């Protein structure tokens, strides 16, 4: 192995340990009985499922996961639809004040979402959307600037003559979008979709404000309230946290090839 390879592998190794160690520790601890949970070096065997038993009885995990899945899927779908149309419009048509539009989108990235919470919350109350799925999902569309910018970048990487060729072939802008742009944009859309999905899945503050009742609560809110009700009972809490990551981990396992492909092919020829 060459020295440069060695250095790269060492750096990557540190990154891997730093990011997986806490996760593995949490996973291991979730299988420890209560008398060993505060001993970090104790091995997790014999494996105990007590923590999971407590978590599954005191914790409405099915409804929490269902709500979270609904929220993350709906937000992702809406952001993708809006972002594709916006990015296509910006690239395909001559937009007046295009520079200003771009600056506004980029600017939207640096506005902290927390600063929008109060106005969003007031609008939500005004609409009577508190404790509704609509109130949970629709305001999160405001975070689509990143998706627009990423898809726009991918569209700009397409050969510009592709649009010209479609125009010569007498394709309408809609046909060009549907039959030329969307198929070519699919890898980029799946990577953007995964980013949005994971970010939405982990969202905490907005669901807390928008849907305080337990019927509509998401998994992150559920974990928090579970912590409050269980006090410092860390075993079941870790078990619940592990359960809450299963859908996202499963998605990564299924789509990991696609995620890597998406990033590799973003500079489409």
């Amino acid at each position, binding site marked *: 192995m060459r020295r440069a390879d060695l250095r790269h592998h060492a750096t990557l190794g540190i990154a891997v340990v730093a990011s997986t160690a806490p996760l593995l520790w949490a996973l291991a601890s979730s299988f420890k009985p209560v008398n060993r949970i505060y001993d970090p070096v104790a091995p997790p065997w014999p494996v105990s499922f007590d923590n999971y038993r407590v978590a599954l009885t005191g914790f409405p995990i099915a409804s929490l996961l269902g709500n979270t899945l609904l929220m993350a899927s709906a937000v992702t779908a809406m952001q993708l639809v809006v972002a594709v149309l916006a990015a296509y419009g910006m690239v395909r048509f001559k937009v007046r004040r295009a520079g200003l539009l771009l600056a506004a989108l980029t600017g939207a990235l640096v506005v902290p979402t927390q600063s929008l919470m109060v106005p969003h919350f007031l609008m939500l109350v005004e609409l009577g959307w508190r404790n509704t799925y609509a109130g949970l999902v629709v305001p999160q569309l405001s975070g689509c600037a990143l998706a627009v910018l990423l898809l726009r970048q991918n569209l700009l990487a397409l050969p510009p003559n592709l649009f010209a060729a479609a125009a*010569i072939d*007498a*394709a309408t802008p809609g046909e060009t979008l549907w039959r030329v742009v969307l198929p070519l944009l699919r890898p980029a859309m799946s990577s953007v979709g995964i980013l949005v999905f994971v970010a939405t899945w982990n969202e905490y503050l907005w669901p807390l404000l928008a849907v305080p009742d337990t019927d509509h609560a998401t998994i992150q809110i559920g974990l928090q309230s579970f912590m409050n009700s269980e006090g410092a009972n860390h075993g079941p809490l870790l078990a619940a946290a592990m359960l809450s990551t299963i859908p996202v981990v499963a998605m990564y396992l299924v789509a990991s090839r696609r995620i890597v492909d998406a990033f590799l092919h973003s500079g489409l020829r």
Partner: protein
Amino acid sequence: MSAGIVLDGVVKRYGDHVALDVDHLAVPRGALAVVVGPSGCGKSTALRLVSGLDRPDEGRIWIDGSDVTDRPPGARSLSMVFQDFALYPHLTVAENIGFSLTLRAHRPRLSRASVDAKVSSAAALLRIDELLHRRPSQLSGGQRQRVAIARAIIREPEVLLLDEPLSSLDAQLRHHARTELLRLHRELRSTIVLVTHDQSEALSMADHLVVLDQGRVAQAGPPQEVYDHPATTFVARFLGAPPMNLQSRDGLLLGWRPEAALFGAAPPGAHSVAGTVDVVEYTGDGHLVTCTAPTGPWSARVPGGTPPPPPGSALTVHVPAASLHRFDATTGTRLTG
């Protein structure tokens, strides 16, 4: 001959830069017109204006007698082959070729079977029947070009535009592709406009040659006419390799082509040029000698069979009066005779 394409007072600007400024340009219907000029002369702009991909700032464009200036590209009965071919990468060859037939704008609506039939006949014409199920990424440059041409001719357009169609092919394929295009033109009988920067390609393919210089038409007409009677010193030097010799004499510019030089005894009335041989190049069918002279360097073609003069020797050649071109020394325009 009726006009296939007419540009009337067409001006296109990019910011302050005038990319194209054409008073009047007519391409005969059914011609194979070649637009040639150095890079930046406006030839690609001209093609994009005719196609409708860009709109002129001034003037009108006519195709087969109708004013198409305000029509979008898809409504101009033309199609185009792009320099990079711009095939749809996610579609098979057959889907690429048939794409335009499956769009809403296409009239009449075609059944799947008749689309397939048209695709097969276009593919047969371009000899790519074997490739119909491949994707563009699985094709060579020459095959991609054939697919792009098949896609362009499937709607049987009145006008076919080709933007530097040969430039992305390697040298061996290029000559073959030239003859294929000429054959295609004979079979299609539609007006073809081809853009190139290669003067030899232009001369060999065109039946109507348009030379552009800095956004303006320097000269247009049959290629032999343009080659034999260049209207300006720009056209004279742009066409032909090596370019025409130009030397100032008696207040005007005297031009003669390297192949017009005669060796040996001077025929009556011939113009004699003397110099010292600087470089001798072997060209296969003879030699090309470049000479230095007080009036400037000049070159002459020595036909095969004649031994070339050695470098450093004195050389005098004679140019028959009929092969001399006279240009105004200040404007560079051709003087009659």
